């Protein structure tokens, strides 16, 4: 099966290893993965900060890049980027009827990574093994706004050796919120520290999620807590794709 892949800009900029793991998993499941080179970012940070028209410039590029691909399925590695394309682009393009129609059609072809594997490919056991305790952050965009609740958990539970530990209030926000993180750092800091405390309390070795921005936020906070003594052990922060690609 041919699929087009949408990694999201953070994977391209900072975390290529997450994208590599996801491509490995998809290929192992028999997908022929393609990726248009003319895509960069969904631009959600712009509309979420109020800059709708500026987001339109960025969004046109995404629509152009993926619309022309001959694949009828597009897999998004990050829930929030997918949410932006499917749910926000209709607002972004509200005064551009041509792109509005194009984005509506494009949205129908988008699938979030875990949802795609479980509900489209019909696979829950991807053959991974990961002998560690893992907790999963039920990020707002994947869980609440896209309504993808079970697939990530089903995938994790099928991983050999993996011990799943649910954190308290797993579906609460990590405090990232795009530019909110920069504009209101004191509040964002409080929110993510609290999220980290619930992660630490599980005693898990690994925290994983299906939304790269949240992972970046959590990783940054855990790292700060580790260096200032609030955390006394290493906790790995991984995208679920990396666990599904693991043999350890």
């Amino acid at each position, binding site marked *: 099966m041919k699929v087009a892949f949408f990694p999201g800009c953070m994977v391209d900029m900072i975390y290529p290893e997450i994208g590599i793991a996801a491509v490995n998993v998809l290929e192992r499941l028999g997908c022929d993965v393609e990726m248009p080179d003319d895509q960069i970012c969904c631009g959600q940070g712009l509309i979420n900060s109020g800059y709708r028209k500026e987001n339109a410039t960025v969004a046109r590029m995404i629509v152009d890049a993926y619309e022309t691909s001959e694949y009828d399925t597009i897999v998004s590695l990050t829930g929030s980027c997918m949410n932006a394309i499917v749910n926000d682009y209709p607002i972004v393009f509200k005064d551009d009827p041509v792109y509005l129609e194009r984005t509506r059609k494009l949205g129908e072809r988008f699938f979030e990574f875990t949802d795609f594997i479980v509900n489209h490919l019909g696979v829950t056991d991807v053959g991974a093994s990961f002998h560690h305790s893992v907790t999963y952050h039920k990020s707002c965009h994947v869980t609440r706004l896209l309504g993808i609740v079970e697939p990530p958990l089903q995938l994790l539970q099928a991983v050999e050796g993996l011990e799943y530990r649910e954190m308290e209030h797993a579906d609460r926000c990590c405090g990232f919120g795009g530019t909110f993180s920069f504009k209101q750092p004191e509040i964002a800091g409080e929110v993510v520290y609290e999220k980290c405390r619930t992660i630490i309390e599980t005693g898990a070795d690994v925290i994983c999620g299906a939304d790269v921005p949240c992972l970046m936020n959590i990783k940054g906070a855990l790292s700060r807590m580790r*260096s200032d003594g609030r955390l006394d052990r290493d906790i790995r922060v991984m995208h679920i794709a990396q666990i599904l690609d693991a043999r350890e």
Partner: protein
Amino acid sequence: MSILYNTDKTLRERVSDCLEDDFKHNAIRTAQEVFYVKRGELVEEMGDGWQQLRLHSMEVRNHVTENLDYYVKQFATNAEANGCVMHYAPTGDDALWEVLDIFEKHGATYAVKSKSMMTEEVGLNEVLENAGIKITETDCAENILQTAESKPSHIVVPALHFNRDAIADIYREKRGYTGSSVPEEITHFLRKILRDEFMEAEVGIRGCNFAVASTGSVTLVTNEGNGRMVDSFPKVQIVFVGIDRIIPDLEALDTMLALLPRSAVGAKMTAYFSLDSGPRGAGEVDGPEEVHIILMDNGRHTLANSEFKDMLRCMRCGACLNICPVYRHITGHGYGSIYPGPMGIVLTAGLAGYDQIDTMAFACSLCGACAEHCPVGIPIHDLIRQHRMNIVEQGKNHAVEVPIFKGLELFWSNKPIYLAAMKAGRPVMKAIARGEDALDENSVWIPVVKGWTSTRDFDVLSETRFRTWFKEHKKEQAKNGKGGEQ
């Protein structure tokens, strides 16, 4: 505009004050947990019924918003037929004049009051006090706030920021209380002093949770009995009704009453509920002789005709505050508005205007938990973002941020620029990180970046782009004659 308070401080300063106040910080978190658990249990118990109720309430409320003038008229006509005196107040100031007129007509100088957001919205207490009228808040929490000269930190439990010791001290200092900090003892004291005030007051002032158009009735949902005393003891009663409180009929009231206490405090019902239809009738032994209804618009028609019309469904239950990750840490005092939290951002910005609200519209991570919990399905986070879009469109954003967002627009839509920036960015970041893989607190001298690194480390750009790996990978596959299967 009395919606806002503590405006001589910036939002950031107010937030810092709140974060430093450990008691307040913990109190709000504990309260959130309690409400969250209790509400969750009741909602779960109802199964699908909860969602059906929500949908029904949305239908009913939208119908009223779309036919607002019709229902305002129907309510006013029926309330008048019940013997109430109607006062239509397009603005808060109009409402205040009407109230002052009523006091003047009766030569009244003493009033008791039960909780009403509308009176807070227009700053009624201050105006009456300035006019030489004594006004006593009789709701426990409101009385604490009034005595302490403090502001509400929550819309449903407004004195959340005081613990029992602080409350005992307030009454010791201001009202001669001599007892302990045991809540029952303080409440008993309050009950005693309030009794006298109920007996003496000439006017009772109250709010209204829902106004029933078909019967012209006003309702009061409370947990303390004081509302019932306010609406039955004084001879003259003034009811503040926002035009967005109107619902069509008693059947709709039933739906709303199933949603409100469950959402507000996680209870199936409250201890008291009053449905009042006009003044004391012939042969009745209690109730006011005169009932004045102040039907107040104060910006609601404007909201009803804007992108924010969904907000008119709001029943002020506070469920969105009780789940909000931001409110959880900064309380109502961080927002500096009598309407705090998610609903507060939408309402405050909508009623007070963008020039007044500092950066409040941006104090939200857009997580959407509020919308999920809202009993009347208001897409609160979308409306907050709509405010942001309006702020930018109207040029009311900070001028310094514009080049940053314009820069991002360019950076994310122009591949050569993006790739060049990536290439140049890594060595710079590496240098700042002193060779490490993340920027730590030593980078807080850099504008914008410090927003992140003041509380978290920031990973530096990777050495290679994912897209570069991907191209190599595809070349490799082509060379090995592989498709996708391995």
